[in-house]
């Protein structure tokens, strides 16, 4: 499938879409005019697809500097009468939460959908927080999708709901839905207006105490009305198998429940809850009417389970509720058909045979690592050598969110403390005040723009003392290479003003600023040494483009890097300290470099103590023949 088919294919056509791609089609079918995000897995592909399609679709899309700004862009568009869409990974909503709380009060005019992609089991996140709590915290309607088809259909429904009640609607997916592919039947596209008009109404859009009090009352009243809707909604539908045992479930967990119920032909009734806040109390009461016991199956927190327990308590029902709270199901991590089957078995009092591992061989782990030729590897190697040469042994390395967090692995071990986006700099302020240890912190270019500037101002103003390394690889690498304000291109692929990181750092009041090319080992090490000896905040901007940037020029086309066996003493500096995936020890004990993996960054050539690794020019003709 060509990605453009998401825009060009017609009603009734079927496409094989990822949940994230289906969200884009849903936005196009709903006539969304403005979309905004900060990239984050598992939501990233929504932005990647929109950045390709937005211009042709006649809508506006941006990669905002962070999620809070993204939500604010969408809120203003919706206040101006347009349909707007903002989406982010679960922790992104933490960043946006300050404005989320207020937009629930002010409400919207055009429809506004906030998609949160949660990450149970933390495939690519620092936590597995359950963002269904945000719907309760902000008091907003919540929809939960189970499949790509449902993501698309719920997008359209969410806009109707949002406009009917003039409130933003939260749509929750999880990794298994965002990254699930399935057959999606398309609906008709809707042309979106490009411009709206903001009609002023400060009593409605400016939450100062006097107006906010009114707004909160209005919100509570609206949500009571929406509660009637969720109780009657066909999105919350029971499947009866005439049983006295029932399962209440939502989202991805619904899929596991159905797979298990159908495969083993289990005699249980199932209530799928899709419109899950306000919680459909009446619907649940009806469902439980003939049941003796009910199992609540949900990812991650026992949110619905507590709602069901409250209903049982409120109505003095004599029914048992199983789930996470009584240990029938695990409290954490994503579920699977196996886990759900185990839970059903425990509820029914069945003895489940334990699964034995089929192999008793000890398997080596395969951790993710920095790519061959990654400029971060060189920077890590050099900063550690610089500290070593200055006899600085006790260094704290606060790190941040990005590929460079992989510095946690041996041998780099350049990731000692991490909280969230931008936390490397804020925590460095703390470490430099609380300890006498040397502090060297790392942050990426996109992360610096996202949340690094206020803590850097804080560091300078409060006279902190640390080295900040900005690992500027000219892209938002970990999430798949999206642009950011430091690049001359925007989210729709158009030319854009480029914000200079060195100028930004200087404007924050930093006096010691060095820009290095990390692939130049000796110069970089000297710059790091200077920075380490500086009293105050020193910033080293390590600038070299990510090896994965699309269309980048291949370096060293006529060069091959190899090892001269007569010079190599097997000191193993390259395999044990630099540890590039392209360098390995062959079966005969010799160091070898995989020519297919090698990106010819030359760092191993410069760092080999015996000068045994060389860059050799190869015959151009022969190179051609090889192609």
């Amino acid at each position, binding site marked *: *499938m060509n990605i453009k088919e998401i825009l060009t294919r017609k009603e009734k056509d079927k496409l094989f879409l990822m949940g994230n791609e289906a969200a884009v089609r849903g936005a196009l079918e709903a006539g969304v005019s403005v979309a905004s995000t900060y990239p984050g897995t598992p939501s990233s592909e929504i932005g990647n697809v929109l950045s390709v399609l937005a211009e042709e679709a006649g809508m506006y899309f941006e990669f905002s500097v962070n999620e809070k700004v993204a939500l604010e862009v969408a809120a203003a568009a919706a206040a101006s009468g347009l349909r707007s869409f903002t989406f982010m990974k679960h922790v992104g909503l933490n960043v946006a939460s300050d404005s989320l709380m207020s937009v629930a009060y002010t409400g919207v005019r055009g429809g506004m959908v906030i998609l949160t992609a949660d990450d149970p089991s933390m495939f690519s996140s620092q936590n597995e927080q359950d963002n269904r709590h945000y719907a309760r915290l902000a008091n907003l309607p919540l929809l939960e999708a189970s499949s790509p088809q449902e993501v698309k259909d719920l997008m359209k429904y969410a806009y109707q709901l949002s406009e009917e009640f003039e409130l933003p609607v939260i749509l929750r997916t999880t990794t298994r839905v965002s990254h699930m*592919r399935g057959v999606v039947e398309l609906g008709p596209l809707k042309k979106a207006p490009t411009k709206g008009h903001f009609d002023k109404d400060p009593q409605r859009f400016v939450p100062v105490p006097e107006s906010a009090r009114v707004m909160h009352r209005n919100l509570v009243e609206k949500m009571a009305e929406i509660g009637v809707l969720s109780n009657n909604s066909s999105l919350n539908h029971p499947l009866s198998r005439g049983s006295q045992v029932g399962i209440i479930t939502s989202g991805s967990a619904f899929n596991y429940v159905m797979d298990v119920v159908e495969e083993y032909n289990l005699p249980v009734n199932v209530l799928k809850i899709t419109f899950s806040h306000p919680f459909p109390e009446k619907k649940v009461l009806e469902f439980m009417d003939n049941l003796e016991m009910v199992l609540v199956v949900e990812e991650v927190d026992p949110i619905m389970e507590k709602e069901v327990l409250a209903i049982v308590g409120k109505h003095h029902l004599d029914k048992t509720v199983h789930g996470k709270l009584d240990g029938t199901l695990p409290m954490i991590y994503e579920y699977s*058909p196996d886990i759900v089957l185990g839970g059903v078995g425990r509820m029914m009092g069945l003895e489940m045979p334990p699964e034995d591992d089929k192999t008793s061989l000890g398997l080596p*782990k*395969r951790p993710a690592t*920095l790519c061959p030729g990654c400029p971060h590897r060189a920077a890590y190697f050099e900063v550690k050598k610089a500290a070593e040469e200055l006899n600085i042994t006790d260094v704290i390395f606060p790190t941040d969110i990005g590929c460079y967090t992989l510095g946690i692995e041996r041998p780099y071990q350049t990731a000692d403390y991490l909280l969230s986006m931008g936390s490397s700099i804020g925590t460095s302020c703390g470490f430099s005040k609380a300890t006498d240890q040397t502090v060297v912190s790392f942050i990426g270019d996109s992360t610096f723009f996202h949340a690094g500037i206020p803590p850097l101002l804080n560091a300078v103003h409060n006279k902190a003392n640390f080295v900040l390394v900005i690992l500027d690889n000219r892209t938002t690498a970990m999430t798949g290479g999206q642009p950011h304000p430091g690049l001359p291109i925007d989210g729709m692929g158009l030319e854009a003003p480029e914000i200079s990181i060195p100028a930004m750092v200087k404007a924050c009041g930093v006096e010691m600023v060095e820009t290095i090319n990390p692939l130049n080992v000796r110069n970089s090490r000297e710059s790091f040494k200077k920075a380490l000896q500086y009293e105050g905040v020193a910033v080293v901007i390590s600038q070299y483009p990510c090896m994965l940037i699309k269309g980048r020029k291949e370096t060293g086309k006529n060069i091959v890097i190899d090892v001269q066996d007569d010079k190599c003493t097997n000191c193993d500096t390259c395999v044990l300290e630099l540890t590039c995936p392209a360098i390995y020890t062959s079966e005969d004990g010799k160091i070898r470099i995989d020519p297919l993996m090698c990106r010819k960054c030359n760092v191993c050539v410069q760092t080999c103590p015996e000068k045994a690794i060389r860059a050799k020019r190869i015959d151009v003709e022969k190179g051609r023949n090889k192609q």
Partner: protein
Amino acid sequence: MNPYNIYISGVGGQGIIKTSVIMGEAAMQSGLSVVVGEIHGMSQRGGVVSTQMKIGDSHSPLIEEGKTDLLLAFEPLEALRAMNMINEDSYVVVNTSTIYPFNIRQSEHPYPELSTMLDELESQAKKVIALDADGIAKGAGHILAMNMVMLGAAAAIPGFPVDKETIIKSMQDNLPEKSIPINLEAFEEGFKFCLQNL
């Protein structure tokens, strides 16, 4: 009817997700229901990548342990890591080209011998097709066509629910035009190898 379950495993960068998309679209074109589960993001950078596909009636893309009909392993260690997914009726197609974890020198466990790994797989599966997919791909014109060698071998497995022609059509819809001849040859070579070694 129970779905046909395919578990694909390997290392980031081997073209596993592309292979799943081609298979999934081919299943859809054949009028079958299909769901695929995959993980992106941090796991890419040289780490383990796996996708799960169910062709037929299913809601979730996750396969129960031991319920895999076909394990398609792009790397032998990753075949072993997925062993809990197979049973004595499963087919296994495994690429014998090894990729050592980058920090194998610091690893608690050594990288197992290839023969040990294949013996282990054979002890648990109905049939193991072991092929040098990297070598076959190079022979077809480019190492990057390795995933199509694996796809070709999968298509030749008895009971595979999508026919060869529909897969080839899906390859043409999903691969860059100029790479098609090499990829088609890689696919055919994989298909042939599997048929001859069943």
